[in-house]
């Protein structure tokens, strides 16, 4: 912590616009969404006036129910080792649902920290006919109450001033409510029996009282641990005795607290809130259809189909442009190296066949990534995702999970890493474990390149019922992970993580127009991450794969083909000579590749991948793509380039990759790739865990190597068997004769 820097925490119920407010105050661009559970870890940023803002995950109360709420509460109470308590707190209250938000406000006031209440989403409250007398509420609560609209930064100057004042003056609020007599007696008894030195300052006294109250009320919480840490292990026994006395008197402390708080809120604060009677809102009317058991599901499926068809069809013109750009880069690099006297050798091959073919083969799929994230950002921003979670609750319950798992699983369609982290919002450890173990089965955006290239090349570009067949196959393969995840979740729920699913309660937010800035930032962030990934992991992998595919280069091979070239020159002329030399070049490249380290390794594993319809190059590409699944495209690009079975320079109107694949042959002249092989590759990558970042996240989130290894093993076995069954079934019904 920098000396002189004041730390101010932002806390509030889920989906009250905390992160939007955080971004507006700090100028940062953290991810936001119109559904609960977007923020699952604390984030920090600076605002003017030497203040560090801490954006905490959403919490309904200071009694944490899930790991993300625990982070919020521990951070607020200064229970994180090496981290001081914040100097002030901003409680963000949803103005359209102020009564519920005030529950958390009253709890935070008891911490003794200076508090500012931001009445956020005033525009939504107004549209619901809700008006709040903020000055009167401020007087009742005894803390500053500032109306805000986080989406309009111009409305935040009063809030900024209130935050600076609260952090500067350090004036703690005093609760205006009185605890029930029985509970107060128990607090007093607990305080006397635990003894210890009397607090020397008011602040320490408030902190002590807060800890005693929370420990007494929140049975089994981390407040008990904090009490035991402060007063010794005997504190637990004292706590149990005091609680037993309350029980004997028929008093449940947790229920008594809820009754006391809502009683005070309804009596003292609610009169400052007026609600005009209004008819059904747009949200009510839209939800009647969108969350309908039957029509809601139909609309959901149609929406998903639309998204995937758009991903598939809209991107092609831009892809052609990127492809051409990388083609030019290759030519430019060759020309530059030749000019520097370094052409024609390993360096030129590394740059053009390795780096440009590898990175370019993956980077070409940027348009699909942007389109996917555009749709995700719009669906998240408008509030539809929460409805989708509601619809999916039944399906997930069938899989032994609850709708709580939907948001993390839906996030995995973008990337499994944030999806697995989002599982922190799941209250049941059992549901959380099952969710993170099936999360990598969701088709993340990294699978897009594999699906697109295979579908584009091997699925006929026909139309069925007016819809693109390629788009439908793409959708089907994208959703295959979901279908497989259901039985896997059921099985895991009955074996490694037994127990009933947790109940699912989710607040459905009001529909809003997605904020263009939020949508732009989400799409921009995804595009940037994809480019960075192509420039780091894919680049590294491309160089290593090229090395394994290029070396060794025995002189005997060069001598053999130089002799053949000399013979051709002596006996042929013009076009015949040109074609013969090209043929010799291809044979030479093929022999080098087969004799390379990759070639030897590939042929060793070929018996294992032959039943899937794969040749050794596809097998090696699958193995090489362990760090990141997009590497398979880079690897295939490199090995088929080095094998040079086709002259891609002659390309005019097709993606270079397409011609490379269609020209690949088995030694007997049969094409390596056909529709069954393409389906088998797609199924393998749909079901396998080829992503090191996901494995690392699984390790971090479960704090054990056991679970990532378990996930990798079961998914690899599933992927192999799935690819085997797909290939064999597709061959049996004659799909090898179909094709684009």
């Amino acid at each position, binding site marked *: 912590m920098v000396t002189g820097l004041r730390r101010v925490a932002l806390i509030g119920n889920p989906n009250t616009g905390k992160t939007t407010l955080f971004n507006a105050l700090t100028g940062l661009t953290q991810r936001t969404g119109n559904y609960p559970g977007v923020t699952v870890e604390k984030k920090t940023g600076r605002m003017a006036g030497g203040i560090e803002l801490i954006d905490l995950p959403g919490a309904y109360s200071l009694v944490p129910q899930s790991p993300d709420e625990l982070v919020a509460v521990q951070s607020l109470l200064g229970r994180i080792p090496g981290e001081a308590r914040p100097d002030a707190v901003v409680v963000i209250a949803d103005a359209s649902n102020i009564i519920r938000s005030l529950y958390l406000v009253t709890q935070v006031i008891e911490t003794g920290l200076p508090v500012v209440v931001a009445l956020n989403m005033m525009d939504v409250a107004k549209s619901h006919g809700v008006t709040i007398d903020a000055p009167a509420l401020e007087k009742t609560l005894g803390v500053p109450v500032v109306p805000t609209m986080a989406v309009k930064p111009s409305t935040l100057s009063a809030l900024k001033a209130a935050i600076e004042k609260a952090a500067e003056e350090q004036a703690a609020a005093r609760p205006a409510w009185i605890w029930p007599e029985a509970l107060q007696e128990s607090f007093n008894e607990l305080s006397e029996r635990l003894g210890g030195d009397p607090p020397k300052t008011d602040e320490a006294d408030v902190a002590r009282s807060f800890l005693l109250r929370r420990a007494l009320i929140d049975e089994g919480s981390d407040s008990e641990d904090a009490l035991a840490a402060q007063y010794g292990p005997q504190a637990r026994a004292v706590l149990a005795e005091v609680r037993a006395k309350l029980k004997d008197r028929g008093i449940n402390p947790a229920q008594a607290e809820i009754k006391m708080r809502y009683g005070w809120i309804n009596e003292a604060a609610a009169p400052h809130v007026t609600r005009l009677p209004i008819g059904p809102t747009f949200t009510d009317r839209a939800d009647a259809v969108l969350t309908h058991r039957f029509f809601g599901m139909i609309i959901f499926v149609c929406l998903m189909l639309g998204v995937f068809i758009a991903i598939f069809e809209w991107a092609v013109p831009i892809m052609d442009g990127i492809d051409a750009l990388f083609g030019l880069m290759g030519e430019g690099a060759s020309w530059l190296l030749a000019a520097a006297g370094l052409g024609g050798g390993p360096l030129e091959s590394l740059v053009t066949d390795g780096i440009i073919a590898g990175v370019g083969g993956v980077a070409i799929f940027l348009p699909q990534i942007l389109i996917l994230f555009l749709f995700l950002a719009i669906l998240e921003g408008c509030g539809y995702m929460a409805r989708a979670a509601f619809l999916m609750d039944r399906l997930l319950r069938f899989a032994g999970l609850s709708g709580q798992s939907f948001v993390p699983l839906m996030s995995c369609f973008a990337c499994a890493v944030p999806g697995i982290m989002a599982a922190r919002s799941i209250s049941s450890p059992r549901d959380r474990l099952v969710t993170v173990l099936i999360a990598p089965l969701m088709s993340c955006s990294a699978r897009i390149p594999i699906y697109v290239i295979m579908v584009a090349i091997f699925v006929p570009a026909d139309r069925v019922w007016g819809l693109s067949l390629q788009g439908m196959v793409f959708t089907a393969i994208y959703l295959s992970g979901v279908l497989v995840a259901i039985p896997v979740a059921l099985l895991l729920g009955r074996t490694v993580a037994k127990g009933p699913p947790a109940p699912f309660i989710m607040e459905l937010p009001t529909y809003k127009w997605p904020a263009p800035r939020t949508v732009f930032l989400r799409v921009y962030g995804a595009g940037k991450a994809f480019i960075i990934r192509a420039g780091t992991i894919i680049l*590294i992998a491309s160089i290593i794969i090229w090395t394994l595919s290029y070396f060794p280069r025995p002189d005997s091979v060069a001598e053999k083909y130089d002799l053949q070239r000399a013979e051709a020159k002596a006996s042929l002329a013009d076009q015949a000579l040109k074609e013969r030399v090209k043929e010799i070049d291809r044979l030479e490249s093929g022999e080098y590749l087969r004799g390379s380290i990759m070639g030897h390794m590939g042929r060793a594993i070929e018996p294992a991948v032959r039943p899937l319809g794969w040749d050794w190059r596809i097998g090696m590409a699958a193995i090489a793509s362990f760090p990141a699944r997009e590497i398979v495209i880079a690897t295939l690009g490199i090995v088929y380039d080095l094998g040079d079975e086709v002259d891609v320079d002659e390309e005019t109107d097709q993606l270079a990759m397409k011609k490379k694949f269609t020209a690949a042959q088995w030694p007997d002249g049969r094409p390596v790739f056909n529709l069954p092989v393409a389906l088998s590759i797609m199924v393998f990558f749909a079901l396998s865990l080829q992503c*090191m970042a996901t494995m*690392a996240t699984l*390790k*971090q989130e*479960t*704090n054990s190597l056991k*679970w990532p290894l378990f996930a990798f093993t079961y998914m690899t076995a599933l992927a192999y068997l799935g690819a085997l069954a797909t290939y064999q079934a597709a061959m049996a019904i004659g799909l090898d004769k179909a094709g684009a």
Partner: protein
Amino acid sequence: MILEYVIVFIIIAGAAAWGAYRICRMFSGDGCGCGKSACPRNDPQDKKDFPV
């Protein structure tokens, strides 16, 4: 020719070292491999045992 091989060797060795570094950091350090000291994923509080 020798210069060409030296450049290729440097590129390969650099890629291998960079790759190994990223993998090690991913699994032992900040998880996401972003390398930022302020990465929230460095927070030990986030590393909770699974009570299953």
